[in-house]
């Protein structure tokens, strides 16, 4: 029984076939060999079935039903005067379309222009309880009055909230002009403009955190970037110098929303909330790089690049709440944020013997923060109250230096043995460690004993040692004030902590005319050797196998499989700070541990086949990704001891997702450079995630403390989508 959709599809397919026959019989195809232009056009018609409106399916692309122009490419490579011109489009006129246009004179100059659009769909069904636009979200006064008097009316009101899509789109255009007056010189100018617009979810709070309000954050960004570079190179060496500048502008600088539960400002709760969105900023960088061959066997390379990052957006007031008394004056009208970085690299590499390479490297990345450190005598918490104490903003900065020595011996023509040592010195300002040193030793062995066999192996061991670790250094006042416990003394933040790292890697590749087999193993094992709390270890193992077999000269089978395993262990302590009347509860009996495990299996199997002297080709594959995650947590103390707090140490429900994809493309070569393509694709995505599966605008059934909170109720639904398309591909 033919459905109307199938009938429509059949009609469209018939039209395409008729169209291709008409094209083939046309004079345009005559004597195509003489034409200097070459190109391709692929047009077709597509039908979708299933959940093709799913936000996850449409996350980064757009696959609409109906006619489409998949790609158009044209190359004029032999125009008079050695000129060339080419143009490409893909996903033409769709929401993920791309265009490229190039022209120039061979060996002299070229101009290239690109334009690209990338969608990013977060969700289709966000329930937006607010009205308004342009960064101001409002709720009618009567509704707020009703909620202020009776918050229990919230569930019935949010049920009627409008459904809205939450998505962004990036439109980026880039023009590049390259001039090569001689083979040695090159000058390049580049300018790009990117616009990013749409909405994405953002979490906000009012009333000292009792109201969590999730909103669609308006995004309207413009980023202009310009780059100019000049380069010279010959057999002795070369140099490159460039300037790049980037200006970021956010056209919606703040987000204001009505507090659904208050109609008027008051101390302890504002009628509106306000958050500062990303401020405008600018970045500039100069780069100078050079290389010189001191002799045929020795090359010196250096690069020096100073850069500046600037931000001076006007500060918003402390609060939008007009009822708060005693709000202090701002210490400055704006930040006048200034960071300078200086990146320097020096490398010398030499072959004292033909098979031996010695390399020495020194790198310094100096990240200076000259942003003023401002003192705020108080601050307003969630537009509600001023808990104090005074705070100072800290200009975090660091300097990272690396010294590396390496010897590489390429023996018996095809094998390589490399040994290296690297030392990293990391100096930081306003962080828990002021200096850490990391020593890394490593060896790699690559052997290629037969044409069909290649083995690559490597092993590295690194040890990082902070010279002194002092917790509580990352905020001012240190340790968060008088009635505070500060950081747990045994905590070592993983990015600064003493660490032992082992990393091993192996790759095996074998092939012959008929088959190929490769496999790899990769492990990273980080152990934080002096950490009593925080992340204790981070271990991962990855295995891959990749095979292909040529069954016949026109049939190839392939398959690959990857298993990834990640394991993180961390430890913490539940603590209660002291109050004016009660001492702190800071007992080891309240320690708890958590174990995070992630396993991902990825497999793929497929076939590439051709028949009838390659007139018919079939490419098909099936891929599956299965990810599973678990978080187990346990209290380490005893509930029978007084002051036991850790009553919420429970395992979280397991998470997982699966992504299936089947793609089959059958291509039939018609006479005169035309081909008919039949394409079928199936995608299926399943997900189990306790964090988002039960999200609704009103979350009281799950967490009673959220009775004055409103969420967007975002979900990332599972989907099954079938796509069938018929296309005519014509090369000219």
């Amino acid at each position: 029984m033919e459905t109307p959709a199938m009938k429509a599809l059949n009609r469209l397919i018939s039209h395409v076939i008729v169209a291709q026959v008409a094209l083939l019989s046309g004079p345009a195809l005559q004597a195509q060999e003489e034409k200097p232009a070459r190109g391709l056009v692929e047009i077709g018609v597509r039908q979708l079935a299933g959940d093709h409106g799913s936000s996850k399916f449409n996350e980064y692309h757009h696959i609409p039903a109906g006619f489409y122009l998949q790609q158009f490419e044209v190359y004029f490579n032999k125009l008079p005067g050695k000129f060339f011109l080419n143009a490409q489009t893909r996903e033409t006129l769709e929401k993920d379309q791309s265009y490229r246009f190039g022209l120039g004179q061979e060996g002299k100059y070229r101009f290239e222009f690109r334009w690209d659009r990338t969608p990013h769909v977060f969700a289709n069904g966000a329930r937006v309880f607010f009205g308004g636009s342009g960064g101001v979200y409002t709720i009618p006064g009567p509704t707020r009055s009703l909620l202020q008097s009776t918050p229990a009316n919230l569930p019935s009101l949010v049920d009627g909230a409008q459904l809205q899509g939450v998505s962004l789109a990036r439109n980026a255009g880039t023009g590049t002009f390259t001039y090569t007056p001689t083979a040695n010189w090159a000058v390049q100018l580049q300018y790009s403009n990117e616009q990013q617009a749409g909405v994405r979810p953002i979490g906000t709070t009012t009333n000292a955190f009792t109201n969590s309000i999730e909103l669609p954050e308006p995004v309207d960004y413009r980023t202009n970037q310009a780059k100019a570079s000049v380069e010279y190179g010959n057999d002795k060496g070369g140099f490159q110098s460039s300037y790049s500048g980037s200006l970021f502008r956010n056209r919606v600088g703040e987000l204001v929303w009505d507090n659904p539960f208050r109609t008027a400002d008051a101390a302890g709760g504002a009628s509106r909330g306000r958050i500062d969105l990303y401020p405008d900023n600018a970045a500039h960088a100069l780069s100078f790089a050079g290389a010189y061959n001191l002799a045929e066997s020795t090359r010196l390379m250096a690069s020096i690049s100073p850069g500046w990052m600037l931000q001076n957006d006007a500060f918003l007031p402390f609060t939008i709440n007009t009822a708060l008394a005693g709000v202090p004056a701002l210490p400055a009208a704006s930040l006048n944020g200034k960071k300078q970085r200086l990146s320097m690299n020096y490398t010398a590499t030499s072959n004292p013997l033909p098979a031996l390479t010695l390399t020495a490297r020194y790198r310094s990345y100096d990240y200076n923060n000259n942003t003023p450190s401002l003192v705020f005598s108080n601050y307003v918490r969630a537009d509600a109250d001023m808990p104090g104490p005074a705070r100072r903003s800290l200009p975090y900065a660091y300097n990272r230096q690396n010294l590396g020595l390496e010897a590489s011996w390429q023996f018996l023509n095809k094998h390589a043995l490399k040994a290296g040592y690297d030392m990293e010195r990391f100096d930081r300002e306003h962080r828990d460690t002021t200096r850490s040193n990391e020593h890394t030793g490593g060896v790699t062995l690559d052997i290629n004993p037969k044409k069909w066999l290649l083995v690559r192996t490597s092993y590295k061991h690194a040890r990082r040692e902070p010279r002194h670790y002092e917790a509580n250094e990352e905020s001012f006042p240190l340790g968060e004030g008088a009635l505070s416990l500060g950081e747990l003394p045994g905590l070592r933040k993983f990015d600064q902590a003493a660490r032992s790292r082992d990393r091993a890697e192996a790759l095996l590749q074998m092939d012959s005319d008929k088959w190929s087999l490769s496999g790899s193993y990769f492990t990273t094992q980080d152990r934080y050797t002096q950490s009593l709390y925080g992340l204790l270890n981070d271990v991962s193992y990855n295995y891959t196998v990749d095979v292909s077999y040529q069954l016949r000269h026109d049939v190839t089978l392939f398959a690959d499989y990857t298993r990834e395993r990640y394991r993180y262990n961390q430890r913490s302590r539940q603590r209660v700070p002291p109050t004016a009347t009660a001492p702190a509860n800071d007992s080891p009996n309240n320690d708890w541990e958590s174990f995070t495990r992630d396993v991902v299996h990825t497999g793929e199997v497929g076939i590439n086949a051709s028949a009838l002297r390659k007139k018919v080709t079939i490419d098909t594959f099936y891929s599956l990704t299965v990810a599973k995650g678990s978080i187990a947590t346990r209290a380490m103390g005893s509930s029978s001891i007084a002051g036991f707090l850790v009553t919420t140490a429970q395992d979280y429900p397991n998470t997982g997702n699966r992504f299936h994809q089947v793609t089959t493309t059958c291509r039939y070569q018609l006479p005169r450079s035309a081909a008919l393509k039949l394409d079928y694709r199936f995608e299926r995505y399943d997900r189990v995630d306790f964090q988002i599966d039960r999200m609704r605008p009103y979350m009281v059934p799950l967490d009673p403390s959220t009775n004055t909170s409103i969420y967007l109720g975002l979900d990332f639904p599972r989907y099954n989508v079938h796509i069938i398309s018929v296309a005519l591909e014509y090369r000219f």
Partner: protein
Amino acid sequence: MKRFSTPAILTLFAGMALAAPQQPMDESQYVGSQICEECHRQGYRKFGATKMARVFFEAPRSALESKGCEACHGPGREHVQKARERDRARELGVPYEGPKSSEFIKQLGKDSPMPARAQNAQCLQCHQKGQRLFWKGSTHEARGIACVTCHQVHQKVEPFQIASRFKEPLSDNRMFVKPSQMEVCFQCHQMRRAQLQRSSHMPFREGKVTCTSCHNPHGTPNPKLLTEATTNETCYKCHAERRGPFLWEHPPVMEDCLNCHEAHGSSHPQLLKATAPRLCQRCHVNTRHPSTPQLATTRFVFNRGCTNCHSQIHGSNHPSGLRFHR
């Protein structure tokens, strides 16, 4: 801040310098590309369609480029002589016992008897500048990777001949041994192929980003062959809003995006290495709610966990934003 001793480094670099004179070009040893075409007709025709051939044959910019085939394969006089001697012997029906003609030409590719470095030297005659300025001593060079491991020179792969499982940004530079640039990298970096298939990913599969959007496989002075000086500067190319400076900065964010994110793909939302709140609790162990394990059904865990409230975690410019709420 104390630095390593600059004189010691300069001494180290200078001590590695060894002198060796360059060989001048002997014109009498070159035969011209037309002679090559006589025997290697198919290869010559394929090469002729490439951009490199158009420059060599139609608009050479240097003496070397004007040598055509011999610019890469070296002077061909002896090679041609030996081939002709062999052909003459065949015509006469006598066995040819001389050396193979292939021994007198520079063969490039997987079956070449030349080591990778010697093969690469042929390419580097012209391609030392641009992205290859830091090739020598780079990770791939030190491990014996040849240019021809990834690139093919003799045949331009037209974009429309490609049937790849991975879309890529539009380009007219497709001189790869595989249908797509990503598949070239996956030859060795197989794990990355799996990571790109994960639920949370950048638009790699959709053809909007590719490996070289962030990395330069030809060598850079930066870590992990990044095109920019650091991971963060690489991320700022697309996420310029996050670069600040901010009034209130989150120091691990400012130092390295990869403290929290896995750029190649993750099973967790927003490319995170682990889900909140556990990710945040790796460091935040002070008091109150960050120190509490938290039930799965609370606002500290569901949805986006900690960032339900601390949404400005990449930095805040609000005077009341020190805890990244504003």
